[in-house]
């Protein structure tokens, strides 16, 4: 394994994506849903018929691809980020409770974790979508429900291993409240593994959201996400490749960068272990 | 005296950057004659295992070996890897430190022994090879897996594999360390028998001085990558000349008047990356003088085939 250098490029792309998600429309040259029937299916700049005005070309309604991608970044990153943050928090809390209380509570939580992890994740997401419906809010909910279980499992095992260490035993004997012990001793010890899992999860969440949107079961128009843009461009795949290639590349780039950062963090903090 | 089987001259094994190398073995020179048993003693980190790996050329990639190793007229350090592989196992056998993990857990004993025999074109069967090392019930063992055998039994299997075609040199790295005391003697006897019946020269590397005393004809004592004393076993144990050898002998627990006496050498093994310019043992040595710290001692002959690297060897006698 090569030594863990800082993946500057990957970090830069991640930051750029987050900024693009926060600023959104400010960066885009056009409004994402602005149709222009005078400039339909303009190829990307550099190809015959392409223009600087539409660097990445336009779609069947003359909407600027670059602006659409930036708008898509917003929803794709928002769903992924929200899913990871909320799922992480819920999972961490349940994991702490299970690990600390043990016994029946632990057994109940862990069997629930097993049940959630018993299904391949897209299938679980589909079952949830079928029940909850589509749209941004529901998709975020679906992603939270499919993701929390892994955090719970991770944190519980950390708690179990830390619980037996002397300083925690001492704190317990000294009558420190369990919640205080959890906050002061367990979380700081587990935070690197949680962080690594969370960063790697961003990539997973982006793929999940785009898959659902591609299937027509995720984000619905007029909202926009990379997967949805791709699905809409699919019909014109044979004549206008840029409608599917750009959003696909955006997904790949984002996932590669978040995974690279996550992998490097993992190697740095825990060179031998696997998550 | 016969022609030596193995001649080692100024063997140095270094790691790390060219400019500031760390020498795990430095300027080691010795001879080994056919049928001779040579013990190499030293604490862990003294370079004895690295020395063995250098002889058989299985050092990690990062290591560089310099100097001269001549085995039966062939210069081992210059031999192409293909020819070296032909020598390994066939003419130079080796038994590694840990018998518990040195067999593949997923294949039967018979399968692994046969693999070695087939590789050598040996006519023996696995059962015969195992019988020769006095493994009990060899017909049963060949069908068993390593986890079903005790440590001593596994060591016998490994010895059988290493000596399948009567190599002329056998290198044993800590062959008894991982075994129960009662089994250790049996394995040592086995080595002696191999020497007596096949005329194999043996290098036994260990920190267990009792094992060396029982088995070897000659002893080399290493400290911080360097040979500090070499001589016939009787002389090393009865008239050691190097202060380190004496310290080592005194640190073996022994029973005097029903009490266990153990006299450890004070201080710590030095860091190989920060060796002093003089004698590496000077900081722990009861006899050290200014000269010892400033200047590295050369070789002093103190008797027949008995040499020592120490400025104080004369007075220490």
């Amino acid at each position, binding site marked *: 394994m090569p030594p863990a250098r800082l993946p500057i490029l990957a970090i830069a792309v991640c930051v750029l994506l987050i900024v693009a998600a926060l600023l959104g429309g400010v960066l885009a040259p056009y409004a994402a849903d602005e149709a222009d029937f005078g400039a339909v299916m303009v190829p990307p700049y550099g190809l015959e018929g392409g223009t600087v005005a539409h660097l990445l070309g336009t779609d069947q309604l003359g909407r600027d691809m670059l602006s659409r991608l930036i708008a898509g970044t917003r929803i794709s990153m928002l769903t992924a980020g929200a899913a990871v943050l909320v799922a992480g928090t819920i999972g961490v809390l349940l994991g702490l409770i299970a690990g600390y209380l043990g016994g029946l509570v632990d057994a109940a939580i862990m069997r629930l974790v*097993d049940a959630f992890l018993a299904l391949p994740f897209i299938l679980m997401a589909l079952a949830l979508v079928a029940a909850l419906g589509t749209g941004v809010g529901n998709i975020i909910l679906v992603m939270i429900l499919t993701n929390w279980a892994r955090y719970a499992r991770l944190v519980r095992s950390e708690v179990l291993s830390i619980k037996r260490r002397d300083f925690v035993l001492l704190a317990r004997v000294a009558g420190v409240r369990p919640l205080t012990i959890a906050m002061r001793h367990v979380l700081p010890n587990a935070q690197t593994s949680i962080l690594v899992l969370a960063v790697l999860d961003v990539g997973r969440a982006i793929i999940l959201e785009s898959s659902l949107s591609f299937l027509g079961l995720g984000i619905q128009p007029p909202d926009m996400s990379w997967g949805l843009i791709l699905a809409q461009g699919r019909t014109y795949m044979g004549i206008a490749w840029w409608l599917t*290639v750009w959003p*696909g590349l955006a*997904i790949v780039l984002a996932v590669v960068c978040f*995974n690279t950062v996550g992998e490097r963090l993992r190697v740095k903090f825990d060179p031998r272990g696997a998550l | 005296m016969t022609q030596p089987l193995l001649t080692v001259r100024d063997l140095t094994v270094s790691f790390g950057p060219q400019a500031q190398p760390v020498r795990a073995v430095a300027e080691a020179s010795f001879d080994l004659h056919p049928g001779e048993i040579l013990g190499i003693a030293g604490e862990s980190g003294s370079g004895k295992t690295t020395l063995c790996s250098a002889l058989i050329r*299985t050092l990690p990639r990062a290591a560089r070996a310099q100097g001269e190793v001549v085995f039966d007229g062939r210069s081992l350090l210059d031999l192409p890897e293909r020819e070296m592989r032909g020598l390994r196992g066939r003419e130079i056998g*080796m038994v590694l430190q840990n018998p518990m993990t040195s067999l593949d*857990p997923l294949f039967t004993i018979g399968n692994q022994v046969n693999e070695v025999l087939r*590789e050598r074109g040996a006519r023996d069967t696995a059962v015969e090879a195992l019988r020769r090392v006095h493994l009990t019930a060899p017909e049963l063992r060949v069908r068993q*897996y390593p986890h079903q055998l005790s440590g001593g039994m596994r060591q016998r299997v490994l010895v059988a594999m290493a000596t399948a075609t009567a190599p002329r040199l056998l290198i044993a790295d800590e062959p008894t360390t991982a075994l129960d005391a009662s089994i250790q003697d049996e394995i040592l006897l086995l080595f002696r028998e191999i020497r007596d019946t096949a005329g194999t020269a043996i290098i036994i590397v260990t920190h267990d001085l009792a094992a060396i005393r029982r088995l070897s004809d000659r002893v080399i004592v290493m400290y911080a990558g360097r040979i500090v004393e070499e001589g016939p076993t009787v002389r090393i144990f009865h008239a050691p000349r190097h202060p380190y050898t004496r310290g080592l002998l005194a640190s073996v627990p022994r029973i005097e008047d029903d009490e266990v006496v153990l006299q450890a050498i004070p201080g710590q093994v030095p860091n190989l990356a920060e060796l002093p310019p003089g004698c590496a043992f000077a900081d722990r040595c009861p006899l050290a003088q200014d000269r010892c710290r400033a200047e590295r001692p050369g070789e002093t002959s103190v008797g027949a085939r008995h040499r020592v690297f120490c400025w104080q060897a004369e007075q220490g006698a």
Partner: protein
Amino acid sequence: MGSFLYRRVGQTLITLLLLTLLIFILARLTGDPTPLIMPSEATDADRAFFREHYGLDRSLPEQYFVFLGNILQGDFGVSFRYREPALGLVLQAIGPTLQLSGLSMLVAIAIGVPMGIGAAVIPESWFATSVRFYASLGQAMPSFWVALMLIVLFAITLPWFPSSGYGTAANFVLPAVTLGFYASASIALLTWANMTEALRSDFVQMQRVLGIPRRLIVLKHALRNAALPIVTYLGLQFGLLLSGAVVTERVFSWPGIGQLVVDAILNRDYPLVQACVLLTALLFIAINLAIDLLYAVLDPRIRA
């Protein structure tokens, strides 16, 4: 071995039970299916009859036990859309899905395992770097996009393979490559890690000093030892393949479970969704159980 087996099966059963509860709760969350099913001109009496017929008028716990009892008898309900038992529809679709995932698994092993072995044998080489690059792309490319790109390249630009459909050998190529590529990435990384560890083990050192040829050490001993964790992982990998299959089947109009479940969701055909999810879960769990048992056969230390 015996107690290990019982515990493993017991846990699996509890997990399955909880999963049925979860699916049941989700089904109730979708709300009353009556207005969806009954034509708008239906009378209140018709609706009441419908509710009674499907047991929708009873209490929730009661409904759950009826649901569970039905499942145990192999009754997964009737598809609203096709007016056929859902079980039959799922069983029809499961064949094509298994064929596709099975073939993809073979493709993934055929690509991933040699890559992992090579990278472990010669780390810090251009080959190892390429494997790392390949794996990170493989994990980052969503399978639907890979599928579309393959269609553009090998069905439209170069019309070598059909872009959709099922039945002939040519139909298998693009879907199997799509899924195989996706799965090969993680198999390559896993093989790499486990081979590296196996090559560092004491017995490999011993075999080296015994003069056993490198080829034999790598391909017989190290690989066999590295294979144990890889085999365990293949079970999980199969779950990933099923996930990938859902999307890939959709792109290639493959008549498998993925296609069926997505259609069912789009048509709000909840009994069919339930049947698809539960039966896939059963399949996934059964495969993982089988792999645990296979592990025991491969490792003599557990077998004894």
